């Protein structure tokens, strides 16, 4: 199989069937180290299903998903190989532990926990304190807990939410909740960040800030980003490469300029849903 150098995620011939319904067929997607890749397409094209398949929420019916962790993660799952980890069918939490963290299209924060605690959840898989540690609070556990608080606070600062650290996440405005989800995902120390419509419901000003934030995050945390987005302006100016999906297939791929020139894309996507 061909393998592009420094790929962090490579999805080959992946298909997903729900009963008789074929939600994804023969999808090939690749994300390289340090890239920002966008996944676009009309509603129902299978973008979120794709996310669910590569994060272990669904097990793909066919094909394979390989991850190449860049942070030197230890692998707990079977099939760990030096040249990549097969992650289709892996349990969701292990995928996350491996270093692929996501946000959700319909925000899934923990509403009755504070903003800071939401981020602290992200630290869970990078810390070890057990019941005894929690109860006895020995020096080691205390140090770890302090480290969790400090780092989570830092992350909140990065997304501009440090002032509302102790607010319940359900009380935060919409845009802030989206940013909080990103901070939570970053707390798991991912090498690949999966963002599901991060700009949905934001006004142009917020979208602009978000875009800048994503670029900043890539630099600072050395992550690659794969995002689903409908906001064309943002996608075109932010991404290095774009995959266009329709009816569960990838119909075009390339740089923003290439994709927007592809007649198939114009027909299928821009032509029909130009105002999406």
């Amino acid at each position, binding site marked *: 199989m061909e393998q592009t150098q420094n790929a962090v995620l490579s999805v080959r011939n992946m298909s997903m069937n729900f009963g008789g319904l074929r939600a994804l067929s023969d999808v090939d997607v690749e994300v390289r180290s340090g890239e920002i890749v966008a996944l676009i397409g009309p509603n129902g094209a299978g973008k979120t299903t794709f996310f669910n398949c590569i994060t272990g929420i669904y097990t793909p019916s066919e094909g394979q998903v390989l991850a190449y962790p860049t942070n030197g993660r230890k692998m707990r799952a079977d099939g760990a190989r030096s040249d990549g980890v097969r992650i289709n069918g892996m349990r*969701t939490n292990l995928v996350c532990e491996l270093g692929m963290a996501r946000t959700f299209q319909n925000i899934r924060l*923990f509403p009755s926990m504070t903003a800071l605690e939401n981020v602290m959840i*992200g630290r869970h898989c990078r810390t070890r*304190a057990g019941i005894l540690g929690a*109860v006895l609070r020995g020096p080691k556990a205390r140090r770890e*807990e302090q480290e969790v608080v400090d780092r989570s*606070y830092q992350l909140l600062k990065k997304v501009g939410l440090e002032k509302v650290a102790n607010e319940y996440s359900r009380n935060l405005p919409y845009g802030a909740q989206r940013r909080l989800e990103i901070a939570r995902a970053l707390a798991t120390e991912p090498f690949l960040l999966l963002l599901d419509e991060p700009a949905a419901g934001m006004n142009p000003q917020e979208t602009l800030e978000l875009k800048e934030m994503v670029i900043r995050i890539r630099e600072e945390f050395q992550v690659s980003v794969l995002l689903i987005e409908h906001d064309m302006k943002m996608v075109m100016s932010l991404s290095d490469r774009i995959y266009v999906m329709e009816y569960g297939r990838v119909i075009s791929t390339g740089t923003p300029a290439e994709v927007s020139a592809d007649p198939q894309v114009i027909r299928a996507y821009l032509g029909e849903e130009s105002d999406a």
Partner: protein
Amino acid sequence: MAVANLLGNLKKSAIAALWLAFLTLPVMVIRVDTVEKTVTWRWMHLAYMLVGSFVLAVAWHFLMDRRDRGAANRDSGGGETQSALSLWLENPSVMRPLMAFGLLVAVAFPWVFSMYQTNILISALIYVVLGLGLNITVGLAGLLDLGYVAFYAVGAYAYALLNHHFQLGFWTVLPLGAILGAFFGILLGFPVLRLRGDYLAIVTLGFGQIVRLVLENWSAFSNGPAGISNISRPGLFGVTYGVDQATTYIYYIMLALVVLTIFVTARLKDSRIGRAWLALREDEIACQAMGIDNTRAKLMAFALGATLASLMGVVFAAKTTYINPASFTFMESAMILAIVVLGGMGSVLGVILGAFLLILLPEYMRAFSEYRMLIFGATMILVMVFRPQGLIRAKRKVYKINTEAA
């Protein structure tokens, strides 16, 4: 405005009273004997019902208005309204002396009050721990367990049987019971992990029933419905006590266990594990997507809850010196669940308050004897309607951030 509102309420109450009187008419008024073919009419009951339900309806509408207004205020004002009491309680300079005072009262209790008072306080304390244990499973991790009493039975029978057959003492069995409870928690936890919500509820209910039925039927093992009597009370280095001293002694054991449980649960609540449970309760998928091993977290919650229940079972057996399967019915599970929900899911203080309310209320209401269960049921409904989050709303820890390091 206020007057019109009041009149409107009175009118609504009158209608409600008439409706309830009509509804209760057959059961309240008529008594039949189909064998003798006689019918007794008791019209006086209808009058009582009318007056009683009118008064209740007025109170209901009054409270309902208050509640709705409160909700409207919250919506317009935004944010959560913090009750002055809970703010006050959170203030450490108030809380610390209060806790110290409470502990002092608790320590002095058996010397001031009679053995009877101490005895029922032990019951209440047992339920405090049971409530806190179930609070871990239901309140924190969000796993609705309707068969919690099974673990309580495990502990009680562990002590009763080990004491009966091998003369093992209370202090030997206490840790054994805890281990056994954890073991059963994991054993029952495994098959039900895949189930969610109400399916989990019915399966745990089933497990609770199975444990009780086995205890009832397997006479060779558990002595069946006749139960096990003459279980030893706890001793200390070979010293055995009479009932009076033993009650005081068990009281102090219980007090220590309660303090320990409060300490443990309070610390767990704001720890790595506690946060994972909460995340599990709030959103199972997001929780797993953030790298938390759901299975582990669930098993831990089950096991820890079961351990506490089993510990209490040991104390319960030592306290009553007699146990039979009738003490471990579904109603008991429902009672413990009610303590947790009524007190406020996830809130340690709330659960303690709930336990005292639900256990002491019926005991002190002996004067009303036959009406007490009626009042008890009504109280459960009313508290839920007017304070669905429970008496004390669970609060999350406010972290002070060291800004210099940040």
